[in-house]
């Protein structure tokens, strides 16, 4: 879990995970100015602290590197602000444990869930862009709920520090030929997610995604 100034949500998020029996919880505190790491530690999570804010992509990669170094077999990216349902982790893990695929990607559009219209528009554009750029036809884009086997996680290695990491994950999966599967998940759109100005996915719009991807394609 990447967490940046999440003191309001991190505690309940970790409690939710523990309730489902998950104990190897790694929180990367991405230079928070509040009590995120204290609360996470108190709840029993392993907390890695970025001394300065480097972005969600950077934080997730720190978590992945640490997990692999410490012998993790399977890794799950989970939102720290309570948007994801811990009950659905098993849906992401099962295809990995059964050796079906190396990566599982949560999708909001496979289920029957209602996604607010504006987000839908942004996401559908992103899906289309990913299809054009990487040739992967997905039903959802930039869903932060994902699972990897350790072998796949080793191949993913994110270099995008900020929100573009979501596209980078997909780019890596394609480039390194990792077998993947989309799994229906529900995102909980609570009022506080929309109110807080959404530090996560909501902050960047379709145009921004396209620009960042273009930049990366042309300049690197």
């Amino acid at each position, binding site marked *: 879990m990447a967490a940046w100034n999440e003191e309001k949500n991190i505690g309940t998020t970790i409690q939710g995970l523990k309730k489902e029996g998950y104990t190897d919880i790694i929180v990367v505190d991405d230079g928070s100015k509040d009590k995120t790491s204290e609360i996470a530690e108190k709840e029993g999570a392993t907390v890695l602290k970025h001394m*300065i804010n480097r972005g969600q992509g950077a934080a997730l990669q*720190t978590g992945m590197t640490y997990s692999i*170094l410490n012998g993790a077999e399977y890794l799950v990216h989970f939102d720290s602000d309570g948007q994801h349902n811990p009950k659905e982790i098993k849906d992401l893990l099962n295809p990995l444990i059964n050796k079906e695929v190396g990566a599982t990607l949560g999708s909001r559009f496979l289920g029957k869930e209602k996604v607010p219209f504006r987000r839908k528009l942004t996401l559908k554009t992103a899906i289309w862009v990913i299809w054009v750029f990487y040739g992967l036809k997905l039903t959802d884009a930039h869903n932060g709920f994902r699972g990897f086997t350790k072998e796949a996680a080793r191949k993913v290695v994110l270099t995008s520090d900020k929100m573009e990491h979501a596209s980078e994950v997909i780019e890596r999966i394609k480039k390194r030929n990792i077998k993947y599967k989309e799994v229906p998940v529900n995102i909980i759109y609570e009022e506080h997610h929309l109110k807080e100005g959404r530090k996560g996915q909501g902050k960047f719009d379709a145009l921004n995604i396209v620009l960042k991807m273009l930049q990366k394609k042309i*300049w690197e």
Partner: protein
Amino acid sequence: METIQIIILIFSLFALSRVIINIKQRNLGKLESIFWPLFWLIAAFVSTFPNTIVSIANFLGVERGVDLIIYGTIVILAYLIYRLYAQVTSIERNITKIVRTISIKKQNEKTKN
């Protein structure tokens, strides 16, 4: 000599002096140590003898010397911005690597104790 010519000449010489100081202090790479003195020397020369640029411009199919300078400058600036972008990206990545390594190291030390 027009006033603008004098201003450009003085500025070019000033810039040249800064470049030379930087070269002496070994702050510039090999390529930059050649490019920047040459750039300001040419600027100083062209501002003093603006007619020289006109014949080059005509040869290249540009009518006025000033236009050639503007076109050339835009290309050079665009390239320099690209270089800066590449450098900043690489610095950013290195910062992240440092921050990551420190965070993991600290945690590992903590679990050891």
